[in-house]
Structures are given as structure tokens and as C-alpha cells.
């Protein structure tokens, strides 16, 4: 990154050229002929390419990024190269996604270049534009991320936060609905979603380069209570946006269950540093307990308890199992512990598959679990009207899960800052040293497993009612790995990280149904790449960031991050209060 093989003026020209080319690319046709599944979206197919300036969809997104890039490369903005590089990656991503998809669907390069005397170079132009933008930033080393003032008058800061969170709500809604619901009517929802991710990611990277993201996170740390209330409010407002259809609410609720579970796993893995490869078993235990106590016809117990009791019982039973699974931690460490947890997870799965005690339904699952009921008897899967707005069915589950996640987050945050949380972190860093400092490591470790299991058990109880069918297939080893991957992808020990990780890992398969066959392959490769290039995750915890991206005890540089942020800890950083 520090090589200066380009002189600044040339780099500047490259940047401007890249930005202009991106704008041009948005106005070019992208496909020479109509693909078998239908014309490429947003009138990007040559035949339908009648109005180059009427941009929609991904071409509009590309155009926007191009304009921003042009402005940023002409006008002097802070951290210019960082911003341009982020935008460049966005442009390249949009170009690459469309290039690959059209090539694959159209059966060759003819579809994206020239065929039958017609030419459509949109995606190639976008790729080149992205390359130019990125190349232009190699001229000089990247700048420091600017630091913005965080001692403004309180109302101004509140306003800043409000606007930021409103934008966040809008972005979440856009992301959920981007590309639309996949299916026969909309065969290209996958690439359109990925294009949108490229667009959003590019703008986010630019915002991060400008220091805006850091400013927002500083502000929200400063006004903690206010931010939490506003964030909750935003979460409750999501059904009122475009994402408020039954389908998206179901997707959001599913993500929510796994996000809550991932936060629970984060206690075990992220805080206490104990690798758990069978964690999904606790979600399963919670779900099966709730299923058996729900009055479902298939349950052999035939007991129907009110939901709040069910949640408590699920949590308690999952917690007991958590303590049992955690008990070997007294004697077993590190990798061996991972194997013990894997073994417990497999035992659970085999037991559930064989319908142990008639409690799990075996391969028949436990179907027809009745939905939860609101106090006035409204079932949670009915549609409701709130403030005069009709909301789709499933929205009540969404609200319930938002509350669940908020509660789990609160538990996690308090635990993390408690005496026990500090003990966990100490154990994670060095178990022997922690013991020498007087921490009862055995008790602390079992408690970590217990807390994680309780959270998963609660999530499981909600899961059972939400999906209405609980079977062992939902709790296989791969689910444990996926949850672990969510924690790692987001950043171990970090709450927003776990939510982001779970969202990505459970939204992407939903969006890329056309590639469901390749899901696990991509997933496996992604695990390898994350560990190689960004082991600290997308939103690293502050301690963790210093630890994983800095140097380890032996002085080896651990992670050469691509460097969208200087990762070194900054001891001189004093919070402006």
C-alpha cells in the first residue's frame, strides 16, 4: 500500500477517469441479447435500451456512485483516497456481479461484449472504472481517517443520531427488499441484491473513510440510552416501510432468532474464549421443550402451559444442559473442549433423530405447534392493524423477536461489563493468569456455558412457535458452524457484530436461492477467507481488535488487513466528553 509508483497528478487523472467511466457505464447497455430467463433488469438489455438517461435499479446505483466519485475526485475532500477506494470497490463490485451473472446466464462472453453485430459493454466499462478508481488511490499511502468533533451541543448530537438511525432504518429496509422476492417471476433477484450490496458497501466504505461511521459510533456511545431507544423505535418502525410484507417479516423474524442465538454463543466463544461446536443443540433443546409444552397434538406430553412459563422452563432446561456440557471444561481445554462440545451436539442430534423418549418426533418432527396468542386472543400469525396501518401477518413475531434481541443484548452488555464478564475475558486471554488473580475459573467457565445455553433456550422457545414445526433437521452440525461463523464474521465479543453476522449469513441464502446449491461451498470458502484476511470480523470488539489485528505475544504481525481502517490500538485516544 505504501508503494508510490504513481505520481499524484496521474493518480488524480485516473480517479477522475474512473468516475466518469462509471457514469458512462451506467448509461451503456449491458446485455446484447435477451437471456433465456428474460431480459436483464432495468432495461439493460440492448433491445429494451431506449432511454439511456432513464436510469433505474443497479444502473441508477452505479450512476450515483459514479457522481459521488466524480465530486470526490475533483473537490478536495478529507481522506480523499480512502473515499475513492471505497467507491471504486463498490463500482467494481456492481460491474463484477453483473458481468459474471450475464456471462453465466448468457453462456459466454458474447453476452457482455459484442455478439451478432451488437455491442453492450456496460459491465466491462464498470469493471474498468472500478479498477481505475482503485488504482488511482495507490499513488500515495492512505490518509488517516478524519476525527470529527464529538463535543457539539447536545440537541445537535441528538439530531445527528436521529438522522443516522433514520438512514439506518431506510438502508435496512432497502437491503431487505433489494432485488425483490426471488422466484420464477423474478429470476434475477440474486444479482440485483448483490449489486445493491456493492452499491451500499461502496457508499459505506466511503462514509467510513470520511470518518462518519466512527463519529456516529462515538456519539451513540456517548448518548447510550438515547441511541438504544431510537434504535428500538427504528426496529419497530421497520414493518411500516417497504419491507412490511409477510415475506420480509418472516425473513426478518428468522434472522432475529438466529441473531439472538448468536449473541448467546458470543458469550461462550467471544467473551470466555471457549469454542463451542455444538451450540445449536441448546436452541434445539429450548425448541423441543417449548414444542412439548405447547399443546401440540403430536407432543406426547399433552401439556399446554402459558408462553411465559414455557420460556422459563425452556431456558432452565437448556441451562441445565449447558452446565452439563460445560462441566468438562474443568478438565479439558482448547481444541479438546471444542471436540467435547461437538460430541455433545452430535449426541443431541442422534437422540432427537431417534425420537428419544417420544419427545422429539424423530423424523416426523413435531408439527402444528399452535401460534402464540396476544392478550386479546389474536394469534401471532394473524395480520393486525396498528395506527391505522394494516400490517402483514407475522409482524407480531417480528415485534416479539425485536424485544427478545433487545433483552438478549441488554443481558450480554451487562454481563460483559460485570465482574463475571471481566473474569471471562481474563480467562480468554490467559487462563492460568486469571486463576492466579483469584478468579474461580471452573465456576466462571461453567457459568459461561450456562448463560449461553439459557439465551439459546429462550430463542428456541420462540423459534418453536414461530416456525410451528420443530424437527431435528434444524439442529445439525452445520447450523452450529453457521452460528459460529456468524459470531466470527461479525467480530467476536461484539454485539452489533453478532447481529450483522447472523443477518448476513441468513439473509444471503434467502436472497440467493438460485445458488442454494453452492451455498455451503461459498460458506466454507468464506470461512477460510475471513480467517485469512479479517480474523477480527467486520465490527470488531475494541479489545479484540487490538488483540487480533495488532501483534501477538511473540511479535508476529497477525493480520494484514486490507486496511480500510488503521487497526492499531490508539492509546492516546481520549474520549471527548
Amino acid at each position: 500500500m505504501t508503494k508510490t509508483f504513481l505520481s499524484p497528478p496521474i493518480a488524480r487523472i485516473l480517479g477522475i477517469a474512473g468516475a466518469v467511466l462509471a457514469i458512462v457505464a451506467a448509461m451503456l447497455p449491458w446485455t446484447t441479447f435477451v437471456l433465456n430467463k428474460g431480459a436483464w433488469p432495468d432495461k439493460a438489455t440492448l433491445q429494451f435500451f431506449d432511454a439511456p438517461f432513464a436510469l433505474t435499479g443497479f444502473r441508477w446505483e452505479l450512476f450515483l456512485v459514479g457522481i459521488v466519485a466524480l465530486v470526490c475526485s475533483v473537490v478536495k475532500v478529507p481522506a480523499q483516497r480512502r473515499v475513492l477506494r471505497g467507491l471504486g470497490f463498490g463500482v467494481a463490485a456492481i460491474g463484477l456481479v453483473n458481468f459474471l451473472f450475464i456471462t453465466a446466464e448468457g453462456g459466454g462472453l458474447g453476452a457482455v461484449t459484442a455478439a451478432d453485430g451488437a455491442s453492450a459493454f456496460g459491465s466491462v466499462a464498470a469493471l474498468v472504472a472500478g479498477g481505475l478508481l482503485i488504482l488511482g488511490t495507490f499513488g500515495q499511502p492512505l490518509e488517516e481517517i478524519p476525527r470529527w468533533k464529538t463535543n457539539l451541543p447536545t440537541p445537535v448530537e441528538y439530531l445527528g443520531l436521529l438522522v443516522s438511525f433514520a438512514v439506518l432504518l431506510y438502508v435496512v429496509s432497502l437491503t431487505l427488499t433489494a432485488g425483490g422476492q426471488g422466484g420464477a417471476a423474478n429470476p434475477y433477484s440474486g444479482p440485483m441484491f448483490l449489486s445493491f450490496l456493492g452499491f451500499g458497501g461502496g457508499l459505506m466504505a466511503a462514509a467510513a473513510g470520511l470518518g462518519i461511521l466512527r463519529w456516529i459510533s462515538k456519539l451513540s456511545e456517548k448518548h447510550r440510552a438515547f441511541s438504544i431507544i431510537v434504535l428500538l423505535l427504528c426496529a419497530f418502525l421497520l414493518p411500516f416501510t417497504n419491507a412490511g410484507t409477510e415475506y420480509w417479516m418472516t425473513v426478518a423474524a428468522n434472522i432475529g432468532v438466529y441473531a439472538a442465538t448468536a449473541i448467546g454463543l458470543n458469550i461462550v466463544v467471544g467473551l470466555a474464549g471457549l469454542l463451542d461446536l455444538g451450540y445449536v443443540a441448546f436452541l434445539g433443546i429450548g425448541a423441543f421443550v417449548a414444542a412439548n409444552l405447547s399443546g401440540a397434538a403430536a407432543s406426547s406430553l399433552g401439556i399446554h402451559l402459558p408462553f411465559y412459563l414455557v420460556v422459563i422452563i425452556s431456558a432452565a432446561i437448556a441451562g441445565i444442559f449447558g452446565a452439563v456440557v460445560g462441566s468438562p471444561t474443568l478438565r479439558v481445554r482448547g481444541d479438546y473442549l471444542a471436540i467435547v462440545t461437538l460430541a455433545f451436539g452430535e449426541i443431541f442430534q442422534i437422540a432427537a433423530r431417534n425420537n428419544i423418549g417420544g419427545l422429539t418426533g424423530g423424523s416426523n418432527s413435531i408439527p402444528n405447534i399452535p401460534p402464540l396468542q396476544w392478550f386479546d386472543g389474536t394469534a401471532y400469525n394473524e395480520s393486525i392493524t396498528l395506527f391505522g396501518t394494516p400490517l402483514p401477518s407475522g409482524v407480531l413475531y417480528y415485534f416479539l423477536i425485536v424485544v427478545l434481541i433487545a433483552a438478549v443484548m441488554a443481558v450480554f452488555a451487562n454481563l460483559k461489563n460485570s465482574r463475571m464478564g471481566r473474569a471471562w475475558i481474563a480467562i480468554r486471554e490467559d487462563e492460568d493468569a486469571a486463576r492466579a488473580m483469584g478468579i474461580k475459573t471452573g465456576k466462571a467457565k461453567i457459568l459461561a456455558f450456562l448463560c449461553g445455553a439459557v439465551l439459546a433456550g429462550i430463542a428456541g422457545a420462540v423459534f418453536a412457535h414461530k416456525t410451528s414445526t420443530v424437527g431435528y433437521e434444524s439442529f445439525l452440525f452445520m447450523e452450529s458452524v453457521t452460528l459460529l461463523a456468524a459470531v466470527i464474521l461479525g467480530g467476536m465479543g461484539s454485539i452489533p457484530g453478532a447481529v450483522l453476522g447472523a443477518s448476513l449469513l441468513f439473509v444471503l441464502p434467502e436472497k440467493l436461492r438460485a445458488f442454494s446449491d453452492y451455498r455451503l461451498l461459498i460458506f466454507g470458502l468464506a470461512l477460510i477467507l475471513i480467517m485469512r484476511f479479517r480474523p477480527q470480523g467486520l465490527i470488531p470488539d475494541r479489545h479484540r481488535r487490538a488483540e487480533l489485528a495488532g501483534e501477538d505475544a511473540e511479535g508476529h504481525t497477525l493480520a494484514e488487513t486490507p486496511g480500510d481502517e488503521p487497526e492499531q490500538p490508539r492509546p492516546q485516544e481520549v474520549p471527548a466528553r
Partner: protein
Amino acid sequence: MTTLLQQLVYGLILGGTVGLIALGYTMVYGIVQLINFAHGEIFMVGAFGALATFTWVIPEGVKGTWYITLPLMVIAGAVVSMVLALIIERLAYKPLRNAPRLAPLITALGVSVALKEAVRLWYPGATAPLPFPKAFLAGNIDIGPVVFPKTGLLLIVVTIVLTTLLQIYINKSRMGRAMRATAQDPDVARLMGINPDRTIVLTFAIGAVLAGVAGVLYGIHLTNISIDIGFQNGIFAFTAAVLGGIGSIRGAVIGGFIIGLVKTIAGQYLPGGTQYDYVWIFVVLIAVLVFRPQGLFGETERVRA
């Protein structure tokens, strides 16, 4: 009695497979302290490599002659496994040599998932179990009422022979000494003029070759393979390695046989039957880890490699 003896035979056959795979786990863990989750998949890919060789390379005329096809398939399986393991080591594990312990473990999980999926997606017909040629003498040796499949006998004999050879190689040869030294202390080994990287690569290669051979013989014995054989047998093999004491060659193989016997005998006599036979293996694993983490031979046999 007959049932018991019969189950013992089946247990020993399964144990032979598990033992061969376990050698790779135990050597790799002994030297780089990595639970190589991908090792089970390397075993699986070895079997598929041999099957591909049989299907597309070996000429139609000699397919029936087992003394030609068997060596060719074993070599093919071993080579495919070894090349794959070396690629994985170079691309996935080597860059993480000095990373925190969690990183390579998760990478290994990722490699395992990716390998399994790659075979499922790109090996023709691998979405379902595939028939595997019985490239050896068919039939059984009857010992009284107990039947001993000849392919199973081959598996056990090969396991014991290869283990003995490996033990001799590690104890006597120069490279074997280098492996033991690296396992004990890579830094001091480096000072003694040993190239740890080369030693690690060799360890991965030997482990993969053994897994590849195991994959081929396993396929020949059961006459069908699927993409799921890797994960399952990999877990068994890891259990065997732990049971025998990580780092111990002898322990891995004996552990393998014990695991095989536990599975078949528990499936026959313990409550739950074959539906729960896996559970007993995991119970053994947990019990060993909790009560004797050094395994059966972990302490008596100090030599690791």
C-alpha cells in the same frame, strides 16, 4: 457367542479404517497442534479419486482383474489425497501458522465444508451414494460360524503393515527424527538445522496418503461410498487419536480398533441398538478427554510425531 465374535470381526474392520485415518490426525496434531477437520474429507476425496480412476482411466479389459486394478486404485487414491492435502496446507494453513489457535481450527472447518460440497457439486452423481468396485477377492473366510470378509481382512492387514512401517520410519529415519524434533519444539528443531516447514508438509503428506489408502480400501470393503463418509469417519478417527493419546502412532491404531469394537458391540448389546451406536463413541470420547486427556499411550510413549 457367535454374534459376539461376528461383531468383533466387524468392529476390527471398522477399526482398521478408523485407525488409518487417525494416524493423520495424530501426526498433524502432534506437530502443529491443529485439529485438521479436513482430514476426514481427504479420506473421502481419496475414495472418490480412486473411483474416478477406475471409471475413466483403467481400461475396460482389466477392470475385472483385481491385482491390476487394486494397486492402481490405491495409488490413485493416495496421490489424489496427498496432492489435495498439500494444496490445503499451502493455501489455508500455512498463512495462519502464527495466528491465534482459533483461526486455523475454523479454517479447517471451512476447508472441510468446502471440500465436501465441491465433491457433491462436481463429481458426477455424487449427490447420492455411488457404487464402488470390489477390486479384491470376493467372498468370506469362514471361521466356524463366523464370517470374515476377505476385503475386511485386507483392510486390517494393510492397516497393521502400514502402521508398522510408519513407526519404523519415524523412529529410524532422518526425516522421522526431524518430525519428532519438530513436534517437541519447533524453534529448537530449527536451531538444529531442521526445516520445520518441510517437516510439516511431509507430515501432512504422509497423513493424507494413509487416509487415501484407507478411503480406497473402505470403498472396496463396503462397495459404495458417499460424500458423508468423511465427516463421520473423521470424527471417529479423531476420537481414536485422542483415545490412543495424541501424538502416538501405536495409540492411534489401537484407539481405532477400540472405537470400531465399541461401535459394533454397543450397537449389538447396549440399549438403543444400532440407532445409538454413535452415541457410545462420543461417550467414550468425552470420558477419555475428561478422565484421561493424555490418552492410553500419551504418557508412556513420550515420542510424538
